[in-house]
Structure formats: structure tokens, C-alpha cells
């Protein structure tokens, strides 16, 4: 791009949307518009506030809850927060009602709802729930957050795999298969080579292989992508179960990888609350901290991302500017598999230390839910995965201290939230326009 002299002469050339009398060109068809108001958000808030009212005030419990904020090794020990259950419930419900009112006002005056509103609403609701559920008990917040991060890791890797693949126009139901094959391959390769690094690479390779099958069938043979995804999930379950039963049980040496060491990051790991939650993990988790922002940046700021999004939105348009749509789709789906496969390695090389039958236990589907709830955006999907991870961690914590809510209901939460999201009650989810449609070149 040459920077010739006219640059200075037309600094505001882009602000010429308004037509003036001298510029008949700018006249465009603009139809009259009636105001449309979307009442879904305030209605949802109102319903949730009512739920909160019933749960936290009407069905409130006596006593107070201790939220432990400190953990061993913090550079400054925070005191425990002791919150009275009933009072906290009342305060939160009042605040929730206020937020609902704000939301109603925003819609009534046709203003944009910021992201802060659902965030504040969610945090308040969760705090009230914690206090309510933990009445007369102690809830260790750092432990809860540590578990949240841990449980979110495979979800986030899986969701990133989903985001990349779907942004490129290939529906990735096979996240579960990518995770499971990654877990299997990571365990076997790390055990047989004695190298965790090779194990990680092996896990990524397995994810890539699953992805490539998906890509070949979806892109080359135009098979309905949902079908390939579902079948791949079944296939990998069958394959890993078969190999586990026929090979691994007979040769335990093939299924005893060295687990990756936890590497606390000196200094910042002593920050209260978030230090242990974020900075006492294995390399896989640190890799996640890097990969997520890199994907987000790459998707929206680089040539790779521009082309990736283009082939997922309007492949023919991309083709007419010389982009090899199907080739690009293929390699990006493969990349998605590598990322998800890395998430699979987390199961065997980080948490468990051995492969087990169907050890991903449907987490791939939760990752898929996070992709959708996160509106196909890497950061939002990560937030969704963290939310789902939190629900899971909460269920474990409450299970340990004796929960008033059946753990199954907590486990159901991600799916119910996603159902509400796809039904349009929470947020606006719009998939990449060409996602799921094969591009058939003439």
C-alpha cells in the first residue's frame, strides 16, 4: 500500500454517510422503521429474581455462612467472611430486583444492555446461592475456584476446538471424540515413551486424526456433519473401550504415564484467592492461558482469522477472491482437533494419571454447549466453560459439605442454561452462516 499525498487531504472521507444535497449518490433506500423492543432479557431477570425471592428469602435458612478466602501460602492472609443467610438473601434479592428494573428501563427506552448487567446479576445470584447453600458451614473459596479452573480446562480446550471448526464452517459435534482420543493416546504414548511431552503431542495428533476423519467426510464426501460427529463419538468410545479391554488391561505398563508436575509460578501464586486458583497448575493449563487469547486475537486480527471467518460465513465469496475454501477448512478443522486433543491430554496426564473407559463422560457435549452459549466467540466460550466448570466445582464442594440441592440438579445446570440459550432466552446466538453446509465447488 503506497501512502501518497491524498491521505491528508481526505481525513474524514469515511464520515460521509449522511446524504447532502450536492451528493445525490449517497441517497439510499432506507425504509421507515418501527421500534422493536426485546423483552426477553427483563422477563428472564424477573423470573430469576422471583426464583431468588422464593429460594433465598421465603425458603431462607437460619444461621450464617463462612466463606473462607485464605489458603496456605498466601502472602497476606484474608479473614473469613461470615455472612448471615437471611440478611444476605434479602439484600441480594433487592439488588436483583433493582437490576431487573434497570434492564426494563433500558429496554423501554431502547437502550443497549451492557455486558455488565448479566455479569452483575449472575455474580449476585451465585453469591446468594453459596451463602444459602452453605448455611452454618464453611465454604473454601480458593478451593472452589481451583476446582473450577481444573474442571474447566478440558471444556475450554474442547470449546476452542469447537469455535475454530465451526467458524470455519464445519459443525464439530465430535469434540467428545477428540477429547477421548486425546486422553487415550496421551496416556499410551506418554507411558510407552516415558515422555510427557511426547504424550501431549500424541494426544494432539489423535485429536487431529479424529478431526481429519470429520473433515474428509464433511468436506470431501459432503456427509451431514452432525451425523459424522455423532458417529465419530460412538466410534471413538468403541475403539478406546476395545483397546482398553484388549490391550491396556493386559499391559498396565501402557497405561501408567508420569503425570505432569505442578509448577507454581513464583510470586504470583501467593496472591490470595486467585493465586492458587490460577497459578499452581501444570503446563497444559498454562498453555491454555496462552492459547485462548491467541485464538481470540488471531480470529479477529489476523489474516488467518479473516479467512477462517470468511469461509464459515460465505465460502463462495471467499472462493471468488482466490481462497481455497475446502483446503482451508480441512486444515482448520485439523487444527481444531489438535486443540481439543490437547484438552484430552489433561485427563490422563494431569488429573487422573491413567486412562479409563469413557473417562470424558460427556464433557465434550458440555464443551459444545459452551461454544453455543459463548456465541462462537473464543473469550465468551471460555467464560461459558468457566461457568459450567464452576457449576461442577460447586456441586463437588456442596456434595462434600452436605448440600441442600441434589447434586444432579447442579450437574444439569450447563445443559439447562444451554437449552435456554439456544431457545433465545439468554443472549442472542447466531451461528456462522455457512456452518454445517458443505461447500461444493463446481
Amino acid at each position, binding site marked *: 500500500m503506497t501512502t501518497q499525498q491524498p491521505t491528508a487531504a481526505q481525513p474524514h472521507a469515511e464520515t460521509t454517510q449522511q446524504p447532502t444535497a450536492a451528493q445525490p449518490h449517497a441517497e439510499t*433506500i432506507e425504509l421507515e422503521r418501527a421500534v422493536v423492543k426485546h423483552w426477553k432479557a427483563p422477563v428472564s431477570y424477573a423470573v430469576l429474581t422471583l426464583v431468588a425471592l422464593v429460594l433465598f428469602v421465603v425458603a431462607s435458612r437460619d444461621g450464617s455462612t463462612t466463606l473462607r478466602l485464605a489458603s496456605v501460602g498466601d502472602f497476606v492472609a484474608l479473614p473469613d467472611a461470615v455472612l448471615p443467610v437471611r440478611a444476605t438473601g434479602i439484600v441480594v434479592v433487592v439488588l436483583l430486583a433493582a437490576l431487573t428494573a434497570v434492564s426494563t428501563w433500558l429496554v423501554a427506552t431502547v437502550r443497549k444492555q451492557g455486558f455488565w448487567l448479566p455479569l452483575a446479576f449472575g455474580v449476585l445470584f451465585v453469591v446468594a446461592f453459596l451463602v444459602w447453600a452453605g448455611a452454618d458451614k464453611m465454604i473454601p473459596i480458593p478451593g472452589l475456584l481451583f476446582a473450577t479452573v481444573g474442571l474447566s480446562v478440558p471444556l475450554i480446550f474442547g470449546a476452542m476446538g469447537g469455535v475454530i471448526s465451526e467458524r470455519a464452517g464445519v459443525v464439530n*459435534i465430535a469434540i467428545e471424540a477428540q477429547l477421548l482420543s486425546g486422553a487415550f493416546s496421551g496416556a499410551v504414548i506418554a507411558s510407552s515413551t516415558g515422555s510427557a511431552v511426547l504424550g501431549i503431542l500424541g494426544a494432539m495428533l489423535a485429536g487431529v486424526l479424529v478431526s481429519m*476423519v470429520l473433515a474428509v*467426510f464433511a*468436506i*470431501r*464426501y*459432503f*456427509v*451431514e456433519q*452432525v*451425523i*459424522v460427529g*455423532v*458417529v*465419530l463419538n*460412538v*466410534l471413538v*468410545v*468403541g*475403539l478406546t*473401550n*476395545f*483397546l482398553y*479391554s*484388549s*490391550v491396556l488391561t*493386559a499391559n498396565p505398563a501402557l497405561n501408567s504415564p508420569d503425570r505432569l508436575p505442578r509448577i507454581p509460578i513464583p510470586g504470583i501464586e501467593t496472591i490470595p484467592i486467585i493465586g492458587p486458583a490460577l497459578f499452581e497448575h501444570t503446563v497444559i493449563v498454562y498453555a491454555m492461558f496462552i492459547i485462548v487469547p491467541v485464538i481470540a486475537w488471531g480470529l479477529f486480527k489476523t489474516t488467518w482469522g479473516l479467512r477462517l471467518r470468511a469461509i464459515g460465513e460465505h*465460502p*463462495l465469496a471467499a472462493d471468488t477472491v482466490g481462497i*481455497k475454501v*475446502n*483446503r482451508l477448512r480441512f486444515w482448520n478443522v485439523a487444527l481444531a482437533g489438535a486443540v481439543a486433543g490437547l484438552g484430552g491430554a489433561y485427563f490422563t496426564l494431569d488429573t487422573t494419571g491413567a486412562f479409563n473407559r469413557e473417562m470424558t463422560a*460427556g464433557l465434550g*457435549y458440555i464443551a*459444545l*454447549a459452551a461454544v*453455543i452459549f459463548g456465541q462462537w466467540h473464543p473469550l465468551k466460550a471460555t467464560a461459558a466453560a468457566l461457568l459450567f466448570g464452576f457449576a461442577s466445582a460447586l456441586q463437588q464442594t456442596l456434595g462434600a459439605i452436605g448440600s441442600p440441592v*441434589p447434586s*444432579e*440438579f447442579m*450437574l*444439569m445446570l450447563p*445443559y*439447562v442454561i*444451554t*437449552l435456554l440459550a*439456544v*431457545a*433465545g432466552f439468554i443472549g442472542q446466538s*447466531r451461528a456462522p*452462516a455457512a456452518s454445517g*453446509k458443505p*461447500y*461444493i*465447488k*463446481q
Partner: protein
Amino acid sequence: MNETPRDADDPIEPHAPQRPGGSPDSGAAPTAVHAPAEAEVQVAAPVAPTDDRTADVDDPWGSAFRRIMGGNLVMAVLAILTSLVVGGILIAATDERVQETAGYFFARPGDMLSAVWTAVSGAYLALFQGAVLNFAAADRGFIYLIKPLTDTLNFATPLIAAGLGVALAFRVGLFNIGGRGQMLWAAAASAWVGFAFQMPPILHVIVAILVGIAAGAIWAGIAGALKAYTGAHEVISTIMLNFVAFWFITWMLRTPGLLQNPGGNNPISPPMPETAILPSIFGPPFVLHWGFLLSVLAVIVCAWLINRSNLGFQFRAVGYNASAALNAGMNVKRLTVYAMLLSGAFMGLAGAQQVTGAVTTGFTAGIDAGIGFDAITVALLGGSTPWGTFFAGLLFGAFKAGGFRMQAAEGVPVDIILVVQSFIVLFIAAPPLVRAMFGLPQPGRKSRRQRRDEAALAAMTQQKGAQS
């Protein structure tokens, strides 16, 4: 990708080759080489193609579902054979004797080859004996010779019913991946009617099954209603509903006073009373119960429903071209809900059969036994037709029956069946791949002659038109 240029009329229309008949001049006469008429409509929309309507425009003749349904018998047989070969390779590769002999393959290749033969033939012979005829037990009498066959029918019973559910939804353009959740609810409802009420023998089991069918229908109907009235994609909602159902039923099974067996601590329901159990057709030792005839009946009902009834006519119209159905006055939203309700009803039948026929000693959250997912493969192999689904269900029932014997007799894990099933579906879904493997002509070439004929016909009619 360096594909050979496909015969097609308009690059603007990426799905063009899928048009039935593939005739490039199906658009506009006289020569009608490209079809601008249909494309101009797309341009008219000034907004981004995001809603369902424009998605239909992209693919006016619904190519995906025709591909699903377009399988033929030869392809099915080849796909099954190829998948069995893949399974055989896996069996051989994991066999210990094969691994040992592979160490000195170059010294004595015969050892390994014979080991491979022993492993694979042994496994598949066991599969056959477990699924069709048990020669080993022939000396114990005819009954024991053919007992495996009835086991196959027994395993096929819920597969057929659930497969019909998937197939019916496919025909309306819907994926019902929610078989698991629907079966769980059906099983729970059926079992509840079974152990919580006392009724006369035959009536009891009928009521239990009907309530199960209704429960499955309702759970699928939720996904249908979400699809129709909020646009939520049924693939996502049925998957999510599976998990919701799983955790909900799990909770009910471990909560006293709900589904838990009184006096027990395990998450399992009380056993079914005699009155709520489908009786065995032939009596012991055969386990085959009357549920199988219910499945056959379901096939007949489904066939009438899809092919002959006016509801089926509307279903198929919606499945092929929802937009045209809408213009013809059909209530597409309501039909979507009906389709999911009926699809769930067949799933519900499968769930009810499980608790009233297969597992009568109390059920757990694993009662679906993967049938909800197997049903997808059954429907695909069956080309989404009722009788195709029936035979596909029989085949997969045979795999299941034989798989257990294979595991017991030859130590080959039963999971190999899942692998073989998955490969069958993958191959079925991609006929060009199978054709390439067997060196069969690709349809592009075959139909080119067909196209020539059609073009000649078109030219003839055109001439006639010009003369008149």
C-alpha cells in the same frame, strides 16, 4: 481440492449438483444452461442470510436428506463387509498370538497368518453362533440351535422401535439425537406405572407401555416445540435434553419415595410385577418377548404413516422443502412438533420395551444401553425407510447378540461391535468412498449418460414446442 469439474449449471448455487436428476437444464428453457431465475431471488434480500428461509434457498431440494435416504442395497452390503474387515483387522492386531508371531513374521510368515486367521475366524464364528445358529449346541436339540436367532430378535426389538423414531424424524428433516433422554423418561414412566399400580395382567402391561410412549413423546416434543417456536436447533436441544433426563432420572432413582426401590440404597427401581411384564413368546429357554411383535407392528404403522397417510405426506413435504410446504398451507411449526412427538413415541416404545421386556428386575439410569445412539445408525443403514430400519435393526440386533458370545467365547471385547457399527454408518454415508474402494464406477459417470438422455428429451420437447 483438485476435483474434476462437476456438471452443474451455476457456480452461484453451490448445491446445484444435488438437484434430482442432475439435469443442468432443469432451470430455464430454451437452452437454460444456468438458472438465473432462482438466483435473482437471493439477491433481492438486502439482509444477511441468517434465517431459515434463506437457508432453504441455499438448498432448495434438501440435498442432505436425500443423500441419507438414497442408499441402496449393494452399497449397504459393501459397507457392512468393509466394516467387518476393519473389525477383523482390529481383532487380529490386538490378538496376543498374532502379536507374538508378528515378531518373527519374516522368518515364518505362516505362523502369523494362521494366527490372524484363528483370531478373526474364531471371533466371527462366535459372532455368528451367538447371533444366528449355534452349531455347538446343536446336539442339545433344535431349540438350542436356533435360540441365538431369537436372541437376535430380542436385541433387535428396541433397536427397531428407536430406529423408527430416528427415521421418522429424518423424513421431516429433523435429527432426533435425543433417543437416550426419551427412552429414559419412557422407561421411568413405564416402570412407575408397573410398580406403583395394580391392574389386571394384560391391561397393566398395555397401560405401562402406553404411558411410556407418551413420556417419550413429550420429552421429544419439548425439542420439537423449541425448534418450532424459538428456532432452537433440535440437534443441540435433544443432546442437552439427554443429559437433563439422565441426571433427573438418576436423582429420582436414588431418592426414596420416587423411583427408588423401597428398602434399598442403590439407584435402582423396584422390579416389575408379573402383570406388567411382556410375556415370552415361546416360553423358556427363549427370552424373546411380545415386544418384538410390537416393534413389527410399529414398523407397519410407521410405513403407513410415512407413505400413505396425509400426515406423512405433509411430513415428507416439510422434510424435502419446508418453504413450499408453508406456501401450500401446511402448518410447518405444528408439523415439526408432531414429528418430534411421534419420533419420541417410537423412542418411548423402545424405552417401555426395555423395562417391560428386557430388564424387568428394576432399572437403572443405564437402561437405555446406548440404544438411543444405535438407533441413529440403524435408521441410517435402513435408509430412513420403515422396512429398511426393520432389517437394519435385525442386523444390529444380531451384532449385539453375537457380540456378547464373542466376548465370552473368544475374549474379544464386545465394544468391537460399536466400532463395526460406526464404520458401517460412515461408509453408508459416503458411497463415493466405498465405490472407490471397490473400484465401482462413480455415479457422476453413470448419470452422465442419463443426463444425455434427458437433454435429448428436453431438446425434443423443445422442438415440439417450437413447432406447435
